[in-house]
């Protein structure tokens, strides 16, 4: 589904990603871990098409399509979804209008007519229940005055509504208490299917207890330096990142 090859990316002329490779197949859940500054959030931003990031080399294919040549909205329409680490508050734009616009633009891209109001509201109701999202929040301005947990849950609610092929969760667990984390994880688990895939970016092993990944990758200095199963996450939790850093940095040492 997603194929990243030799990806190099920089921000403000600073090289962050230095030859990243990753293959994600439908039905899989991948976790990407790594110390601060290793490039995790850069990867998420580059995939979603954030302007300030420049891809200097490499390629990203989504179902055989060159993702990097597409505008952010076209990536979303092709099935990429980024759950933001810091969702933006947009006063004056109602959550529900925003969702309707997004759903219908994605449908138009697929050659489908706009959803009937009734069908749309039914879908909203179902997905709210699926991810345990407070109905009251749906009618408020987008993320305005939402708590940190509510914002993250809204991301998962949008994910449920837009039904992307590939969802990237950028530190969705950060700032969540254990109850909120459970709710978010439950939502993601409900949405997992053989048709879609998830890439979870996280600092902590904790999230992976609730959303069990098929693969765990360690990102360090702009590259994936180790891949394994969920046991790798446990090992990292126990030993930290230093042992990995040493082994990676060693060949470059004099």
């Amino acid at each position: 589904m997603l194929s990243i090859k030799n990806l190099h990316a920089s921000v403000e002329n600073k090289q962050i990603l230095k030859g990243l490779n990753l293959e994600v197949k439908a039905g899989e859940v991948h976790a990407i871990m790594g110390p601060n500054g290793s490039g995790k959030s850069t990867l998420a931003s580059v995939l979603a098409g954030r302007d300030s990031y420049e891809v200097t080399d490499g390629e990203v294919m989504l179902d055989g399509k060159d993702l990097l040549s597409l505008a952010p909205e076209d990536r979303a329409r092709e099935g990429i979804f980024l759950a933001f680490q810091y969702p933006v508050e947009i006063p004056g734009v109602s959550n529900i209008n925003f969702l309707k616009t997004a759903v219908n633009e994605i449908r138009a891209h697929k050659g489908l007519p706009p959803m009937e109001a009734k069908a749309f509201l039914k879908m909203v109701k179902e997905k709210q229940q699926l991810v345990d999202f407070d109905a009251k929040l749906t009618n408020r301005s987008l993320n305005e005055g939402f708590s940190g947990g509510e914002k993250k849950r809204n991301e998962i609610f949008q994910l449920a509504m837009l039904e992307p092929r590939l969802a990237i969760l950028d530190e969705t667990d950060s700032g969540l208490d254990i109850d909120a984390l459970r709710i978010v994880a439950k939502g993601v688990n409900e949405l997992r299917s053989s048709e879609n895939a998830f890439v979870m970016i996280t600092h902590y092993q904790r999230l992976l207890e609730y959303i069990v990944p098929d693969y765990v990758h360690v990102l360090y200095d702009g590259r994936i330096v180790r891949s394994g199963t969920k046991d790798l996450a446990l090992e990292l939790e126990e030993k930290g990142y230093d042992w990995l850093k040493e082994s990676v940095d060693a060949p470059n040492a004099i």
Partner: protein
Amino acid sequence: MGDRPIGKLRKAAYERFITTGFPNAKHEEWRNTGVQALVNENFVFDSHLPGRVVNSNAAEIAGKDVYKIILVNGVFRQDLSDIPLEKGVEVLPTTDALEHKVFAAHFAQYADKSDNPFVSINTALAKDGFFIHVADGCCVRKAFHVIHISATHTSALYQSRNLIIIGKNAEAEIIESFIIEEDSDQSLSNVVSEIVLADNAKLEHYYIQIADHQGRYLNHTEVMQQKHSVYNNYNCVFPGASFVRNNIYVRLADEDVESHLYGISLTSANQLVDNHTLMDHREPHCESYEWYKNIIQEESTVIFNGKIFVREDAQKTNAFQQNNNMLMGDQATIFTKPQLEIFADDVKCSHGCTIGQFNEEALFYLRSRGISLEQARVLLVHAFAFDVTERFKDQDIKTYVNRLIEQGLKIGD
């Protein structure tokens, strides 16, 4: 207007104008709004009167049942207007109102006290306009829709002089739209309206400026509010008219008065739109609330001048003012000036002003959900305007204005 008292007022106004002349850039109230080039053009005065049969469709508001009042080149066109048959409601051309005792009691009693040379010349020379009189206790069932139309084959100057009197405990809604005929030559309109709200009166007043670029406008609105009255003004300017100067001066002349001024200007091309407002707190326990939002595109210029004047006697005044600006073009300009002059010591006054651009992070967020750049911009401009548009009491006008915002946005990178 040959009647003696009115004749005297006009003569005095003319003499005042002769001493002041047209304002220049040294005049503080006209510092960023050059009118010299405008007044030095050659105009035919009051040509094409009473004007041909014109089409007012461009000003129509979907779903709105109104009393239409049509002014062509400043002249009240009874042949094109609706005559309200409601008890307590009078609508007359200014020329026919001179003998009306309410008209005579109020004509040129207010606006001429403000320092605006264009008011003097209007008082001196304006021939027609409209007079709306709502009697005490009358709640007008339909809104009045005043449509100001310019239609001329030669560059022309027009004036209209209007008077609106809302009686005690009376309520009304007035919408004023400004349009210009498609193939019309340039015109300059000098419109002065005096509005009196008696005790406990309520007026909802909308301005919709949607004329094309040939239109140039000088509007002076002077509002005199008596006890417990409520005046709400919604001043909307859209792409088109190359020059717009609105003076909206509200005199809170008695206790417990409430006044709201809302503004939304969406400009483009090389428009110049200048909104000068005044909240003149003269008496205690009054409340004024003002919120102007400007979305300034391309090479256009917007000026906001918000003056709050709290006189010595106006204790317990509550005055709020906010002006937010979104600059959307590299060549777009905003001059904004909150001007608070407070002479009472027990008051609550606040003002704020912001100048910004599109929030790139918000744009990216919307796009990352599959929403096109164009649609994302529309959503964000609506969101920016929302604080003001949500205050519109009239839902039909709210819908109408939101659509005008969408149409007025210059989409593209």
